[in-house]
């Protein structure tokens, strides 16, 4: 899976947690999940679970703490995939 595919996969997950009044087009690599995309912080837990399923990895509580933006999430995903390899 290349970076573009990973980003697309993550974007598809994030989309489902956007409030009804936030457009999918608002999602960019540098978007902050809660302050910019207006995603309820409680839903970050659900995004993590969906990411685990989609990328077949496991994220720890500490990983979640550093996950502020879409790019943060991608970095963590890459680290976890690398650890697994």
């Amino acid at each position: 899976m290349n970076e573009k595919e990973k980003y697309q996969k993550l974007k598809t997950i994030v989309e489902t947690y956007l409030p009804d009044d936030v457009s999918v087009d608002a999602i960019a690599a540098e978007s902050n999940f809660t302050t910019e995309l207006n995603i309820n912080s409680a839903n970050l837990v659900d995004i993590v679970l969906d990411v685990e399923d989609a990328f077949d990895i496991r994220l720890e509580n500490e990983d979640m703490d550093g996950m502020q933006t879409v790019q943060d999430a991608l970095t963590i995903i890459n680290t976890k995939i690398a650890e697994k390899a």
Partner: protein
Amino acid sequence: MKNRVVVTGLGVCAPNGVGLSGFETAMTKGISGISFHEQLKKLIFSCQIAGKPNIEDVDLNNYFTKVQLKGLDASGLVYGVMAGKDAWRDAGLHTPDTDGDPDWDTGVIFGTGILGVDKFRDAIYKVDAGDVRRLGSTAVIQTMASGISAFLGGILAAGNLVTTNSSACTTGTEAILMGYERIRSGQAVRMLVGSCSDSGPYVWGGFDAMRILPRNYNDDPTSASRPMSASASGFVPGSGAGALVLESLESALARGATIYGEILGGNSNSGGQRSGGSMTAPNSMAVQRCIRAAMANANILPEAIDTINGHLTATTKDPAEIQNWSQALGLKGEDFPMINSFKGHFGHCLAAAGSIECVAVLLQLKNQRLYGNLNCNDIHPDILNTIAETRIPKKTMDYPIKISAKASFGFGDVNACIIFSRYTS
């Protein structure tokens, strides 16, 4: 100066009708909402029939955001939000935008017995498997009892009291009384009140285990719920939600709202599980006190009551309830008001029973129509010793109604009675 309180909006998600117009049609025509459930047969229930709202064709996007719909597995919550939002729209009130201030004058009292049982079952399996980290973010909000009032409060931006009451099968009627008191005392201008109850084997199983549900109607579901009849053999478990918008008369008149009826007063009490009352049976003295106190609170005489909608669940306790009404009112025979039970139509919707039934009572008032009882062609002889058969309508009829009394009774020996009146300016 105490506020007069009127009902300006109704919403319902009942086994025999989802949405006000479908429900009204079903009640008028005497259409049953009780059906056979294959799932209950597979699980070897004695009673394999139940009342469950049919929401298959409902577009839930009209009620929930897409994020709220993710992993939503709490049927009572779904029914409650549907009924609540429908009632709000029916009252001609708009759903506020997501930004903006709370509406400090609006509150929510929406009761339930237990919420999100299917969601909780799923959570229990995960926890037991050591997988608590995978519960997701909504296990709490879907299973906390106040999940229903919390969802509705957020949708309406309610800034007044937002809470959930719970008093078994009295819950719905109690919620209405609590909302009434809040407005009457001037603490709120409008209250969305009602109750909901989950569907499914995990809610109904405990009653099946108590052997208080009918066992011999699995192949004839619509005949099973037989309030007031000699052949009544237990209540049919149901589910759903009913909702009412209560409002100060002043507010309702100022915005030209449709008024279904006025709440003149009511009472709730408990028999203390003494003098024949128990965890599961009512203390008759307490029931009579509750009815009398409701009339006193509403400042009416027994003779003023045109119709009664009883609790009347279709168990062997129905004759005792009739006796209690008769004693409390001091009326019998032909002098007794017309009385009906809607449990023949949709069974006993447990925590949702009182609110769904009150919605029907207000439709009766508004339309000056009395819904006929179902499945009571063989009225119990003890009932006929107390009141005349003519007092128990078997068919829906046009009927002049000025005042209606409604009562609900619940496990724990708790009672609630409301006096509704037709509103005339």
